[in-house]
């Protein structure tokens, strides 16, 4: 696949890589030369772990490189992937900055009702408080039965076993495993306002 793939990269790099520069009006960029140069950038060495790009749904393969201290030091396209053959788009190529980012919050933050600031809290305290609020909200707003239209202008009492007081949004960027666990728990609690980005 080697030769044909190099040729392929050369053909496509003008679109995927060079397009950005052209858009910004930076002229006289030799995209073929830039692509060749990019190929010589040393890839950081370390343990390589197969991963998948977190952005769109194309599913590009990535390789996460971890140094001897167990720290993620690089994220590149996986050349074995039949989907992307080692290439990534600007977002995929920036994935490392999603992991190593000074602005990333690594502790629990809490904002009390009416407050104008965040406070630091422990993870255990937050989990405990969230569980307590979930139970309290559910128990105070649970519907065993509801009168539903019977199609003849009247109503009929139906067993609905739900709550309209809890809602959940999100899921299309998370794992399949999380989606499974979350729908399972939400259904067990009677939650019906359950939605994610697939709707929009």
């Amino acid at each position, binding site marked *: 696949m080697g030769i044909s793939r190099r040729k392929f990269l050369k053909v496509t790099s003008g679109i995927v890589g060079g397009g950005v520069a052209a858009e910004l009006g930076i002229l006289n960029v030799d995209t073929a030369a830039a692509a060749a140069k990019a190929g010589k950038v040393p890839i950081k060495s370390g343990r390589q*772990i197969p991963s998948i790009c977190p952005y769109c749904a194309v599913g590009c393969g990535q390789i996460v490189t971890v140094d001897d201290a167990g720290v993620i030091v690089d994220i590149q396209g996986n050349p074995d992937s039949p989907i992307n053959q080692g290439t*990534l788009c600007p977002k995929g190529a*920036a994935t490392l900055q999603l992991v190593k980012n000074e*602005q*990333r919050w690594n502790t629990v933050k809490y904002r009390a009702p009416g407050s104008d600031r965040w406070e630091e809290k422990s993870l255990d305290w937050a989990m405990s408080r969230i569980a307590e609020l979930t139970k309290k909200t559910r128990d105070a*707003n649970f519907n065993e039965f509801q009168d539903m*239209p019977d199609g003849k202008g009247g109503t009929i009492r139906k067993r609905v076993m739900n709550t309209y007081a809890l809602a959940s*949004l999100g899921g299309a960027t998370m*794992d399949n495993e999380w989606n499974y666990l979350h*729908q399972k728990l939400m259904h067990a609690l009677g939650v019906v306002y359950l939605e994610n980005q697939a709707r929009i």
Partner: protein
Amino acid sequence: MGSNMAECHPVAFRWPLKAKTDHGAVLMHVDPRFTRTSAACDVHVPIRAGSDIVFLGAIINHVINSRRWNEDPFYREYVVNYTNAATLVNPDFKGTEELDGVFSGLAPDGKSYANASWSYQRNPAPGKGKGGLGPFSDLLLQQLPGRPKTDPTMQDPHCVLQIIKRHYARYTPALVEKVCGCSPEQFIKVAQTMLENSGREKTANITYAVGWTQHTVGVQIIRAAAMLQALLGNIGRPGGGVLALRGHATIQGSTDIATLYHSLPAYLNMPDGRKKHDSLKDFILTEAGPVATSYWGNYPKFAVSYFKAQFGAAATAENDYGYDYHPKITGDHSHMPMMLDMGAGKIKGFFVMGQNPAVGGQNARLQRKALAKLDWMVVRDYFETETASFWRNSPEILSGELKPADIKTEVFFLPAAAVAEMEGSFTNTQRLLQQHDKAADPPGDARSDSWFTYHLGKRLQAMYRDSGNPLDWGIRNLAWDYEPEAKEVAPWRIKDEPSAYRVLKEINGYTVADGKPLATFANLKEDGTTACGAWIYTGVVPEEGKNNAARRKPDEWISPNWGFAWPANRHIMYNRASADSQGRPWSEAKKLVMWDPDADSGTKDPAGNPVRGKWIAPSGEGIDFQPTKAPAMVGKDAALGFDWLSGNDAFIMRADGKAWLFAPAGLVDGPLPAHYEPYESPVANRVYRQQSNPVAKVWRTEGNVYHGVADPKYPIVVSTYRVTEHHLSGTMSRWLPWLAELMPELFCEVSPELAAEKGIRNAGYVTIVTARGEIEARALVTRRIKPFVIDGKKVHEIGLPWHWGWQGNAKGDVANDLSAMVGDPNVSIHEGKVFTCDIRAGRKGGRS
């Protein structure tokens, strides 16, 4: 169409480019804007946003009246055998030609359809089938409909092909020019290229994205494409099909294993208080009855196995497998009504995980104000998103409209692990499951999303453990044990992450007695002896310890040993249609699945001799058909599933085994796509008297005001879109220095003609206004955008990317402050791709 693939899915776009450079494929882009995709295509045809059904309907009209389509036997063989073109429809059916733009069955108030008149003509119902299949299947056997009537000559005036011919007769090149705004020559070029490149030797593909879905006729646009592809013989074959380009890493997985209100995992419907769903039996008969003659005839197995996965040992035949304790929906609980109900104070507690409705939500201002009505909210993300910070520095706070002291919402921010910091699987836009391994622990208190939900569930179960209240039965008896094995967490600091493998194994399904994974969904049972979270994923863990999502052996084509494509590693759905009616490949160039009459089927006849004949796929592709059903085999009338289907019924998930050119059921806004104007449009509908989709979802409520048709205050069409450097609401891109620097600021694409009319200069500020909100952006005056002449009237369009908000490194106004909550009636998606606005030079508040 409906996609800017080069910009939004650039790595995938390498493949059409390769088809062009290596194989001479013709690439055509039909889109209102000239984009990076247009630049790389052979043809770009600009059409007015929201006119897609006219364009597609006219291609259908062109195709079915063409000499090629009527004379080449390929099309007839494909269409007669694999689509419902020959099926006869109820004579009571009336279409848009007879009813001036609507279909028969519209309720007197014009807000909903009854679809009885859209049904097939049928032969008498069969006698009761042989029982003994199972408690629910035996009941299904007793309510089977008769087979649909057909006219294989396709001449009967009530047959689907004739209905389609009449329906699309007025969709002519002249109408395209009038409504879409492109020339008849441009249209003919596209239609003829599609036709000439579809047939025995060649296939054509249609690719779309949210440019087609975010409309009040979104589902019908995609149906029009599917109809065209079925008529051209392009479904189930390599290089054919209709490809959806989706936008999040596992948006497919989160649809399959739905965190969506209307669906249980694997496309079982949610129990619904509005339907006859009073018991598990009612639920199964209501849902499976109309589809029992398709592979959905196995619905009882899927449903019972789902409840067994949910409630484990507590789910028994005696208690209907816990059905009574499962919630029912009672209406539309989707995103938009959810946020409106939140604004009305109905919702108290809110989990927002990996989504940012303060920016990404339609009529985002209204959604932010809804957050202020909550008692509490949990946000899980990497950064302090706009949703997390709405109470602190949103535009409503800065303007003084809301004050932090008045917002009683208790807000929790829990830091999330990055993908590289957890183990799990994603399902890509081609239904391919791929595993990502854990490379490092997440920092500090960051945890995987599964950790959060698992531990919340464990805490809640402990709190409800001693409850004697029957309303708590569901949470008390939830099967909730995903403790990791020691070796799974040995390398890591965090020891209490749930086992991703155990979750995936439950999704896959297992035998209850011994806990062994199921190799195939054919092994599922309706008697409670199997448990399965999502039957379509069965086979991803075919045996203990084996994860097919983690397979990483590529090849030069299908790559059957790279990941796992649901269902059953079938990469091209309905691939029985890649062979002709006798099971032979249509051509050498397009061979995929074929019938081998001499192959050992693996079964024996009553005399003990091996039965010959089975479907094969030399590429290793999974076969989307009953493995040993010969092409000439005729299905049994009194039977379920595969036993009902015949050897040419390639579309095994449809109740008649055919691709539906005409949809007798399943859609709420008509059996055929018809052109309606967007809910907000600068022009009247020139095709029918009916202006917009009569059953579109509208929410007339404070703060969600709509513009009128050809509203003089809002004469300009606006489309929202994305750029390659940012991801959706920007949470995963605006905080990244490289991406923020590449695309730092909100801009608005404006044509030179509109710029001249409004005194807008390139790179200057403009203010864009709707009845919902007002934002400012930099103007990008470009010939990529052009005004259309629609039926003699000039219509301006502008383009507006929507990635920005007030947080992160790249800041800008929220484009969704302009959009309205209005939706497709089938799926409740909003109309973000076309609404109306006004634009003026200068900044908000009159600054320049």
